[in-house]
């Protein structure tokens, strides 16, 4: 026993003494057979090239990979700090499926990782995939959208959302490679590449060098479709088209903020349909409103590449029926306005961009366009502002966005009814820390709004109405409304009321760079101060680590089961389209 303990102790000490190299793709990576990716080894120390030993399943790596990797004697960090040596082999492909054990050593450093290189079934299960993401979609958003849109009597919903009849098939773990927490870049990237990554990263593993565009790449679904099929690719979002979720289909960058570069990556892949906001990054730097730092005119570049352009709802409707091969729809310089502002309150920037289409218009137009390809299509539709309104704790706007998302789901279901060779996936990319806990009833006695919150039996049912039957509540400021609370946030004032003058701005920065409660809401009658519970440099509510519910219907949906890592979703998509079969 003592000997065993001693042996264990010495083994531990040895392991502690040896520095560990890092290998990308990381251990337990799943890689689509034939898909190009970058192989990188980072050593903690500066090592000699002749000391570096890399084997794959026991053989020298050059024999297996067919090429020699570039040796970098010294990688440099900020202020030229030496980070260690590295080995990089770009655009590697592995043609045969199987387990690959990579063993790396140099000096005192050693690392061993295993990759699962997988192939798919030979025959596609579906012709089309419609992948619908409500960014940040949590269970509370669904419940709230259902109650607000359909109403409830004696504990039973008075109607069903379109997404209520798509079977929930999996819980998705959204954690990132360096943290249990996550953002829309690495989560969407996991769905769209099959590889998990770090917060803010898209289509790459996050390496140690400061350059955001040199990180080891993995293939995105749009690239895989271009490589292996003649299918069309569609990207629809209510955010800027270069925002994280839409970018995940085409981009390779460590920093989602590289929006100017992401526009170029969009042009490289040329999605057949690209709808959303974010035109500011398409305009040369001298055009007022541009957010570029160069003179590139991407409006002209997309047109030269064969795109027709639509810049408002009217042009979108006209262009969707036209015969141009590719369609670029840009409807805002930044993020598009949310449904509550666009259709009802006319707040936000609706006065400046009065004719923006909604997600339903964009989804319909995209399906019209994409379904003309007899080879089929992959369409990603994102309701971006479920998340963008959940961050500032503007629950009314987030719920109305969820209702709009659901209407887009209805459009997708209608398409799938007529085209049963279509897989529909409905999911979020991550969750928010939000729950519905009851109602706020203005008719309750007193002036203190807190005392008007109804919980348990006292909550009753809200009195939203939808007299015009459009699926949206006629107004959100009814006398008995949902009370929704975040479990985290900055210091702010809870007003217990919808924000009718424009999206909620809970906190603003002070001169110490701390976020403090926005005084603009202090004097709303009954407002109470809510002490924040996250660091003071955080400006708004944050993402939750909770699992995401994934729903799916149609051929291929049987691939989603139980708990899945977000990156495993890609494998089901790849299988549905048979993207990993032996060629010829």
């Amino acid at each position, binding site marked *: 026993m003592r000997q065993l303990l001693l042996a264990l102790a010495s083994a531990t000490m040895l392991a502690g003494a040896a520095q560990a190299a890092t290998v990308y793709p990381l251990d337990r990576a799943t890689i689509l057979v034939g898909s190009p990716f970058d192989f990188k080894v980072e050593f903690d120390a500066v090592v000699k090239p002749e000391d570096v030993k890399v084997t794959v399943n026991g053989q020298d790596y050059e024999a297996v990979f067919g090429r020699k990797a570039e040796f970098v004697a010294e990688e440099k960090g900020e202020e030229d700090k030496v980070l260690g040596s590295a080995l990089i082999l770009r655009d590697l492909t592995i043609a045969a499926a199987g387990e690959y054990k990579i063993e790396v050593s140099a000096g005192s450093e050693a690392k061993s990782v295993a990759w699962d290189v997988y192939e798919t079934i030979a025959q596609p299960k579906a012709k089309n995939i419609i992948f619908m993401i409500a960014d940040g979609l949590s269970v509370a958003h669904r419940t709230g959208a259902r109650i607000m849109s359909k109403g409830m009597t004696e504990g039973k919903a008075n109607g069903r959302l379109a997404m209520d009849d798509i079977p929930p098939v999996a819980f998705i773990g959204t954690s990132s490679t360096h943290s249990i927490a996550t953002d829309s870049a690495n989560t969407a990237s996991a769905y769209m590449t099959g590889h998990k990554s770090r917060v803010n990263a898209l289509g790459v593993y996050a390496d140690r060098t400061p350059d955001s565009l040199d990180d080891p790449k993995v293939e995105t679904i749009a690239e895989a479709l271009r490589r292996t099929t003649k299918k069309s690719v569609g990207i629809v979002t209510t955010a800027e088209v270069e925002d994280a979720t839409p970018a995940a289909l085409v981009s390779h960058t460590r920093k989602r903020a590289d929006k100017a570069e992401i526009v170029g990556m969009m042009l490289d892949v040329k999605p057949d349909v690209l709808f959303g906001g974010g035109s500011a990054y398409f305009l040369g730097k001298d055009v*007022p*409103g541009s*957010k570029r730092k160069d003179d590139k005119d991407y409006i002209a570049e997309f047109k030269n590449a064969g795109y027709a352009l639509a810049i408002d709802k009217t042009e979108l409707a006209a262009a969707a029926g036209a015969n141009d091969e590719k369609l670029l729809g840009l409807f805002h310089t930044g993020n598009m306005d949310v449904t509550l502002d666009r259709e009802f309150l006319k707040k936000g920037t609706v006065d400046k961009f009065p004719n923006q289409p909604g997600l339903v218009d964009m989804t319909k137009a995209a399906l019209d366009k994409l379904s003309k390809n007899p080879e089929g299509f992959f369409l990603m539709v994102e309701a971006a502002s479920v998340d963008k309104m959940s961050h500032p704790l503007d629950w009314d706007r987030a719920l109305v966005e969820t209702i709009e998302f659901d209407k887009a789901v209805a459009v997708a279901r209608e398409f799938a009814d007529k085209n049963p060779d279509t897989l529909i996936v409905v999911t979020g990319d991550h969750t928010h820390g939000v729950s519905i806990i009851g109602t706020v009833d203005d008719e309750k006695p007193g002036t203190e709004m807190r005392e008007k919150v109804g919980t348990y039996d006292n909550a009753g049912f809200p009195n939203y109405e939808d007299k015009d039957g459009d699926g949206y509540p006629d107004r959100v400021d009814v006398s008995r409304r949902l009370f929704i609370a975040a479990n985290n946030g900055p210091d702010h004032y809870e007003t217990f009321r919808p924000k009718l003058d424009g999206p909620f701005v809970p906190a603003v920065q002070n001169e110490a760079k701390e976020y403090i409660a926005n*005084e603009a809401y202090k004097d709303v009658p009954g407002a109470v101060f809510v002490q924040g519970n996250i660091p003071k440099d955080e400006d708004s509510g944050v993402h939750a680590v909770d699992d995401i519910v994934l729903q799916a219907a149609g051929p291929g949906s049987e691939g989603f089961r139980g708990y899945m890592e977000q990156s495993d979703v890609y494998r089901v998509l790849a299988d549905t389209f048979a993207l990993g079969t032996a060629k010829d």
Partner: protein
Amino acid sequence: MTDTHRMSLTRRRMLSALATLPVLSLARPALAGEKLGFGELYKSFGVLGLEFSDKVKRLNGEDVTVKGFMAPPLKAEANFFVLTEIPMSLCPFCSSDADWPDNILVVYLSEKQTFVQYNAPIEVHGVLEYGAWTDPETGFRSQLRLREAAFNTV
């Protein structure tokens, strides 16, 4: 009545205090120039670009006064800051997924001033300038600027 009297006194005292500050540094009259509102900056907003208003074009190179909010600066020692119409809830300098609104003004101070509470409105006076400009030190791009500026709280 007493209240009104007291208020006007306070106001006069404040105005004179404000007047002395910039005179010391700039040798030009305080709060000089025409008032320019955030709503008056652009003639049109569009997906393919914004167009400056006739008022901005007319006042190019002239002294103007603009009321707005100071956004948290890039760094404490930066010689410019961004003036926004409403207080910024996000800090685009700090947060990678935050972005500036379309209608911002970049303010170059004629001399160092202590940055203020970002929650409170300020009044900035300076020489209006429009057209693309890249800050040589930081690479920050702007379309609309106030040069030789000074500000005070309101």
